């Protein structure tokens, strides 16, 4: 059976058995996801790439003892986020010019920005929406990103962001309400 036809649990099991093909497969599948996610927190691309390499090196080293998962994306995003934050904080300890706060920035290029160019009909509506998007907090943006770009469930997003499911729902719901107000405001 080809790896691409297998379920997440199956791929993960092959990986735990030490199958090198499974390592390459997981890497190929999830490297872009992790890289794009990481680059939303920082522009320091080598730091993000290093974090991914560390994550995989660690997984391979501990392949016999890592836990089971039926959602590899979730598993990787969660460990990656934790590692990246640790690395970012360490990097910022030596860089006093850019003081790190608890609120890591999260920068996203939204698809609505493409609408602004060349689609007159929607131009106004898109501009309003974009303005509303500008008012979102970093945490809201991250939750919205995980929800609508990565299509994850509320429970999974909550786990990745280390918050409660209610808090996660509220983050997204508040963000959507701001968006809706942005769209409605027709002047």
């Amino acid at each position, binding site marked *: 059976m080809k790896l691409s036809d297998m379920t997440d649990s199956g791929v993960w099991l092959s990986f735990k058995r030490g199958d*090198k093909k499974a*390592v*390459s497969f997981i*890497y*190929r599948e999830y*490297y*872009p996801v992790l*890289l*794009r996610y990481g680059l*939303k927190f920082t522009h320091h691309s080598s730091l993000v790439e290093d974090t991914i390499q560390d994550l*995989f090196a660690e997984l391979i080293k501990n392949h016999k003892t890592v836990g089971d998962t039926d959602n590899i994306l979730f598993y990787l995003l969660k460990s990656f986020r934790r590692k990246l934050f640790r690395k970012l904080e360490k990097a910022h300890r030596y860089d006093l010019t850019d003081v790190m706060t608890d609120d890591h920035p999260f920068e*996203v*290029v*939204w*698809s*609505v*920005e*493409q*609408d602004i160019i*060349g*689609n007159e009909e929607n131009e106004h*509506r*898109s501009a309003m*929406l974009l303005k509303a*998007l500008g008012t979102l907090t970093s945490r809201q943006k991250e939750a*919205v*990103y995980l*929800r*609508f*770009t990565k*299509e994850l*469930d509320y429970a999974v997003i909550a786990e990745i962001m280390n918050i409660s499911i209610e808090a996660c*729902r509220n983050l*997204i*719901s508040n963000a*959507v*309400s701001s*968006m*809706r107000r942005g*769209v409605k405001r027709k002047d």
Partner: protein
Amino acid sequence: MNSEKYVAFTTEEFVLDDDFMRWVLQTDEESDRFWKAFLLQHPEKREELEEAVYIIRSLRAVEPPVPLQKLKYRHPKKQITASNRGKIGTQLLKIAAMFVFIVTLGGLLYYYQHQQIGSPVELTDGRYSENGRIILPDGTISEFESKETVIQQTASGNLTVNNDTLLPKERKTTKDESAMAQVIIPYGKRSEITLADGTRIWLNAGSTLSYPIHFTKNRREVYLSGEAFFEVTSDDAKPFYVITNDMKIRVTGTRFNVTSYNNDAVTQAVLVEGTIEASKNRLFGRSVELSPGERVVYDREEKILQKDKVDVALYSSWVNGYLIIENEPVEEIFKKLERYYNQQIVVEELNDIPRFTGKLNLADDLEKVLRNIAFSGSFRVVNEDKRYIIQQ
């Protein structure tokens, strides 16, 4: 899914609903049926639905493509680097490409579901057949053995294949709007087709094109699976649509080339001159307008349309009997060559996937073409059992 629950939903609630989000972001027949039925039953919810669809689509991130070479996990051991030859810029091809825009589309076309567009068309898969075929509106099938087949459809209804008349000129004036002909070209062959409006289409290997015998509607629609190069005759009153499984393209008049293979990961369109609009082939599809030199890619995995700038010569060269290639993994090139020559290329052993830059002459036999690539990619080509085996 329970439609009762949705009757009282607000825009926000639709946006936050799991099933609704999945429907907007993933193409799935079952949920498509559910939501279309819901909309029919509750037309008063249309505004909320459209707004929710708009918000969800707007809230997606636009993400840059990640270079292929980064996707290989580097176990800590030696690496073999691909050697690249210098860039070959061909003035001639640049000129040829000036009035060409290219659309590369993936996927077999099973049905087309946009409201505005007509009935679904099922395309025949004839990629592995020996001969090319044309299926006439009445269901009769004609086969042709020629490697390069010339098909001409005139406005009076006359249809010829390699100058042999298949359908004579119609005397009656009644024109059946839905009369479609289907041209099926297997791997290893090509065809050049002229439509009733003068539009010319070069159909590449392993492709199927369905077109109307007459253009009587207020739009001209052709359906494609595989790859084709179009020179569309300008007619502002009747826009021309190229429709594939996952993308539709609207043109008023220009020359272009379309490719649609279901074993490719993406669907893409490259524009050289004029403007085109591309959109996902589904309800409320947002369209992306292209300027010359731009490409729109539909990633089937991520299900998003993205736009970037490309060297158009790389996408149009096949029409002139060449493949211009710039830093492409050899496995991708093998895929194209397999289709073009209808011969099997088996990668037996490659330590790394070399990349190739250069110009391949498709008039050469496959062995010569492969040796050309092997020379710069430092691998060996062995001809065995009518197959070509690639070894380190």
